[in-house]
């Protein structure tokens, strides 16, 4: 009991030190709870069927992600705890000097951790429960469903996951603590505070060499990124290793580089507090190379994950617009001869459909190489372009009869183009092939199809969809007058139909059950309902996983920096006291403090922005193969997120360090 009292007193005494540890734990616990509480949030919404299946799947995905998130937070907690112990070494040494047994000292420290841990677990859980009430609004919005009448929700699943992960992390922290402390010698504990700050200047030329080396390593990583670095290969390992090492060396050498540059300008260097500020900054960068690198990589992950997932959600949703213009489509890929009667005479079909169109897709008798001129293909030299073009070289394009085309457009409610005799047009809406086909078609070319000489109807591609789909998937269909297709091979046939009433969950299921397998003939049934659901489920999954990871990485990186700054500034408080004794105005001192913190925060961020810019360039070019990407919108959203979280931490760090240095005023 005595030990418990002592532990409690110790916490009170070093409440500021503990507050960082405490808040880190609270945030970890509340995030874990929030993102695992989806199953309970569901109770508040009118969700059933496929949406609840999505939630079930999402819950599972998020619980896997939680393991990863817990590992990240676990490392952060160990990091902040190490700082805490370092600051209290002398006190721990004193206990031992006064004759307390080592075991007892360890018990005190463990007790302190347990008290703070329990407190933060409780507060974190309450915060998580509170915030999850609001989060259900976001969830409802994302699922495009209405919130039913509000009632308090508590997720037992989330509680279980959070508790389990928390106690695993926490157990590891306590064990690590005892291990580190029991290895210390008394003399080391006492000398811990007397830090020997050796400001050894590294030789200039070595720093410049390292700087140049780091730049070339990063450049090499960028080169690899564009040359096979994103496939699982030795190239990707080379990219990751040289990128990480290059970044590390950049931070390692940048301080000396910075000093050299600033010293070159004595007017600036010896102005007001500048020489103090510059020295502070360069010593901060120099002593925190590893943590700056880690923070940089975490930020890179944050920016990358968030901006790409937002961009994919955005383009996925806009891609879905205008492609599901009919209610249900049925496709016969296996060329079953009874397709038409199987579908159109089915009572469900007869009863509910008020209009439908059937059409056949034929195979052209020429391949892409023969149609498209060699020089169009040679225009693309990027590795992905060449790969795609190389693979589709011998593919044959699809052909559609003009009369079918007209009826399809009609049932979709659009306006069909007119095709004169001896003309052809191309339908293409897939991002995947659009640019190649467009390059070809925009020259108003002539082709010979099935022995008939045809000329392009115009230079503008027709961008419509044919049947229901989850994406724009018409990679290029040649439309010709009906007589031209005579004798061409049929590839598949489809029926597209409009129903008397909107398709709902029940009808969707009924249609699938009735049509996907008729007498062992398998047909593809796609309803507008199911495509909407697929879009929502993809968006929601990406959004939640992106936000969960983004928040985790952003908070972790900002906390690492905040802890570093808070401990550093309270350890070196006397520097600011000296400045005040010299008669420096508070305004100047605060400005110096702010510049120091701002640079420590912004240095890894700026490098992360450069890295992610290059990374996003590459990934966008890949996504653009499949989807039209609007990167700007998602980058702005990501920037807002970073400013909010990271900027918030910067501001809080500044405010609390300002308090620390003004404490003796």
């Amino acid at each position, binding site marked *: 009991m005595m030990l418990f009292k002592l532990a409690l007193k110790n916490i009170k005494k070093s409440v500021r030190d503990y507050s960082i540890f405490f808040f880190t734990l609270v945030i970890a616990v509340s995030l874990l709870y929030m993102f695992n509480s989806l199953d309970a949030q569901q109770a508040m919404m009118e969700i059933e069927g496929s949406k609840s299946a999505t939630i079930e799947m999402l819950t599972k995905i998020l619980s896997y992600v939680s393991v990863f998130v817990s590992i990240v937070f676990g490392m952060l907690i160990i990091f902040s705890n190490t700082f805490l112990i370092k600051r209290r070494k002398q006190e721990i040494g004193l206990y031992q000097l006064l004759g307390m047994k080592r075991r007892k000292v360890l018990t005190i420290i463990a007790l302190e951790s347990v008290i703070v841990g329990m407190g933060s677990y409780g507060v974190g859980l309450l915060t998580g429960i509170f915030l999850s009430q609001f989060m259900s609004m976001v969830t409802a919005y994302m699922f495009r469903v209405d919130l039913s009448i509000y009632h308090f929700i508590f997720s037992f699943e989330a509680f279980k996951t959070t508790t389990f992960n928390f106690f695993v992390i926490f157990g590891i922290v306590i064990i690590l603590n005892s291990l580190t402390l029991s290895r210390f010698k008394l003399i080391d504990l006492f000398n811990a505070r007397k830090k020997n700050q050796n400001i050894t200047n590294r030789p200039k030329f070595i720093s410049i060499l390292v700087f140049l080396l780091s730049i070339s390593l990063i450049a090499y990583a960028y080169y690899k990124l564009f040359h096979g670095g994103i496939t699982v290969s030795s190239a990707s390992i080379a990219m990751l290793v040289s990128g990480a090492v290059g970044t590390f060396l950049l931070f390692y050498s940048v301080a000396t580089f910075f000093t050299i540059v600033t010293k070159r300008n004595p007017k600036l260097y010896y102005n007001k507090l500048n020489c103090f500020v510059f020295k502070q900054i360069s010593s901060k960068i120099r002593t925190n190379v590893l943590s700056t690198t880690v923070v940089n990589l975490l930020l890179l992950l944050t920016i990358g994950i968030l901006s790409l997932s937002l961009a994919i959600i955005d383009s996925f949703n806009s891609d879905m617009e205008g492609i599901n213009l009919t209610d249900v489509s049925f496709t016969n890929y296996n060329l079953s001869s009874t397709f038409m009667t199987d579908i159109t005479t089915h009572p469900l079909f007869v009863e509910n459909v008020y209009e439908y169109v059937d059409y056949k897709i034929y195979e052209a008798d020429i391949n892409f190489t023969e149609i498209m001129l060699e020089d169009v293909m040679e225009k693309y030299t990027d590795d992905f372009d060449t790969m795609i073009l190389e693979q589709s070289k011998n593919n044959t394009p699809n052909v559609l009869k003009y009369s079918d085309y007209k009826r399809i457009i009609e049932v979709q409610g659009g306006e069909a183009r007119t095709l004169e005799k001896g003309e052809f047009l191309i339908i293409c809406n897939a991002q995947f092939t659009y640019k190649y086909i467009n390059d070809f078609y925009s020259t108003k070319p002539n082709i010979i199809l099935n022995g008939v000489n045809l000329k392009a109807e115009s230079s503008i591609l027709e961008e419509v969809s044919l049947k229901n789909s989850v994406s724009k998937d018409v990679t290029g269909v040649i439309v010709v007058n009906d007589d031209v297709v005579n004798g061409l091979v049929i590839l598949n046939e489809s029926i597209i139909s409009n129903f008397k009433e909107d398709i709902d969950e029940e009808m969707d299921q009924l249609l699938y059950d009735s049509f996907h397998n008729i007498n062992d003939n398998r047909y593809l049934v796609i309803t507008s309902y199911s495509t909407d659901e697929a879009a929502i489920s993809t968006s929601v999954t990406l959004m939640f996983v992106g936000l969960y990871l983004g928040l985790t990485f952003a908070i972790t990186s900002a906390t690492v920096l905040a802890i570093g700054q808070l401990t550093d500034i309270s350890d070196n408080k006397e*520097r600011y006291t*000296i400045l005040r004794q010299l008669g420096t105005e508070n305004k100047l001192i605060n400005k110096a403090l702010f510049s120091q913190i701002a640079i420590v925060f912004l240095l890894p961020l700026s490098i992360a922005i450069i890295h992610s810019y290059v990374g996003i360039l590459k990934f966008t070019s890949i996504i653009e193969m499949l989807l039209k990407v609007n990167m700007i919108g998602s980058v702005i959203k990501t920037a807002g997120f970073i400013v909010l979280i990271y900027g918030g931490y910067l501001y809080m760090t500044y405010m609390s360090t300002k308090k620390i240095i003004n404490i003796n005023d």
Partner: protein
Amino acid sequence: MVNGVTKIYNGIEVRKMEILKIKNIEKYYGSKNNVTKAIDDLSLSVKEGEYVAIMGASGSGKTTLLNCISTIDKVTGGNIFIKSKDITKLRKNDITKFRREELGFLFQDFNLLDTLTGYENIALALSINGIKHGQISQLIGDVSQVLGIESVLNKYPYQMSGGQKQRVSAARAVVTKPSLILADEPTGALDSKSARELLTVFSKLNKEMKSTILMVTHDAFTASYVDRVIFIKDGKIFSEISKGDKGRKQFFNEIIDVVTLLGGELNDVI
């Protein structure tokens, strides 16, 4: 209001201004029921170019007095004039400006910034006064010659000896040409050789650069280097002796006599 006194130096009349004038100051600590009088109705004055030491046992109020003069602490009552300006009436922002322009500080533990070289430490005192880079190197060159610290200007504090650190710290204090230099146990952390060197340098500063120095010490040897020693006991002036034309040894013996009279801890300083 200029309180001048007239002195005869080699037959020439020189008006010496009072740099520091303390009038009936009091400093109380504690609550209403339990008041500790750290300084109790104390008055003294220091003239331009004077080299004065304040001696007293620990708890006598000498450090409190220094803190009040240096505007780090506030008096409970009375007035302190520095160059005829009442610093007890200054506002917070003016205090900072006043401290920067009129006062120089020396501390027992040097208080140098460990991240800056000797040169940069001195330069900082100038640059926060708005002095431009061109002038800075000139001023530092002059002062480091007087103090003999040219060789350590490019070293960091951890590369210097205690004596060197204190001389750099002295250079920082005098380089801004303050009206008054306040030194708090400047030899406290030095060995006797370094202490002697430092005190010689102080005398030089006082003679050559006409610096006015007020030093707080409990060490009779250190005090024997100054012109005048003021003894404090229980927050009041106990006695005061001047060196005059006496030699340092004789002055030292006189100081010891007073110390013996004072009794207490000061006995162990010899």
